[in-house]
């Protein structure tokens, strides 16, 4: 349950970037290797943004699947359900994670002026 403190970090970035403009949507990229629960994050956002200039804005979480590159055979694996960090081709465990660790605020949508 660290979504609340994550929302405080998000608030700091949005508040600084919006600079007083009205924000409607906040787009995040969250890799599947981040242990973030999207529903909890969006709920915590309503708590953190309540009674602030960002009240009513919505978090939109774009989930990024985990992609691995095998350091043995060189093939690329995209994980579907289980987060087993193994190459699906040669079953090697010596892999580098090429996607799935993102945790980034990508963009804001502002209300029409």
């Amino acid at each position, binding site marked *: *349950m*660290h979504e*609340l*403190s*994550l929302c405080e*970090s*998000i608030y*700091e*970035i949005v508040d600084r*970037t*919006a600079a007083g403009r009205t924000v409607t949507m906040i*787009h*995040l*990229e969250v890799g599947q*290797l*981040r*242990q973030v629960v999207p529903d909890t994050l969006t709920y915590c956002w309503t708590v953190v943004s309540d009674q602030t200039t960002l009240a009513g804005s919505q978090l939109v979480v*774009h989930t*990024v699947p985990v992609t691995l*590159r095998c*350091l043995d055979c060189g093939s690329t694996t995209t994980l579907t359900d*289980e*987060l*087993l*960090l*193994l190459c699906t081709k040669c079953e090697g*465990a*010596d892999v*580098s*994670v*090429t*996607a799935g*660790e*993102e*945790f*980034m*605020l*990508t*963009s*804001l*949508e*502002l*209300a*029409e002026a």
Partner: protein
Amino acid sequence: MGRFHQHEDSPDHEHHGDHGDHGDHGDLSGYETGPERVVVLERIFGENDRLAAANRSTFDAAGVTAINMMSSPGAGKTAILRQTLVNLPDTTRVAIIEGDIETSLDAERLAGYGAQIAQLNTASGFGGECHLDAPMVASALPRLDLVTADLLFIENVGNLVCPAEFDVGAHHRVMVYSITEGEEKPLKYPVMFRSVELVLVNKLDLLPHLDFDLPLFLRNLASVNPAATVLQVSARSTEGLDLWYNWLAEIGQRSERAATISATPREDLPACDPRADADALRASTRKRP
């Protein structure tokens, strides 16, 4: 951040966006249409990571090697630290940041062994957080005289999820796993098990009394973190702990910071008992490449 990067020596390792090169973060073209959209591309851990880097600079300037110790509640972090304080040579000076949501019970268990201890309760002013982050650790540093310490243990809040996400500025990340937790934990908490360079497999003295499948656990661990060093120990029987003390001496020697500050002769570590060789054989000591 580098904390998930277990292959830093590999020349063909692709450094990803956590290093600040935001150019490869998926197709963002859909975000850039429409006049009311502002592209931000800012890492949400950015502020924490800046403070973590500042903590690391503080540790470097003081010549102290910092170790972030993580585990689930009750795995034995404090018990291992207590044995460590008893058995490390007096010439190795230790400081501890003791992270807990409530109480100073763990700090009390560690008092009286010559280490400086700073208690950090996340319930007091930090919203009862389930982890330590870089600002919290920074707030504890003024209570320690780091210049007179060789090793700083940062005992994190017991939790297999959140502490893995927050860089606190430590040089090394270690976890304690106890064999009462079940073989499947690396698969359930891959981010934690993947984020550390050393796993202390604790409570080994209980092995005869449990249905624990040690080889299966080691396979599960290797499937999420093949580079991790694994040491099998028991804080209760002290079995295997010499390997941990040796690891601590090694990282102390690797650290130029420690070498310049402390003239500690590392040879005066406690002599290994005859079981140590057997322990060493049993320990799955897969060193980092």
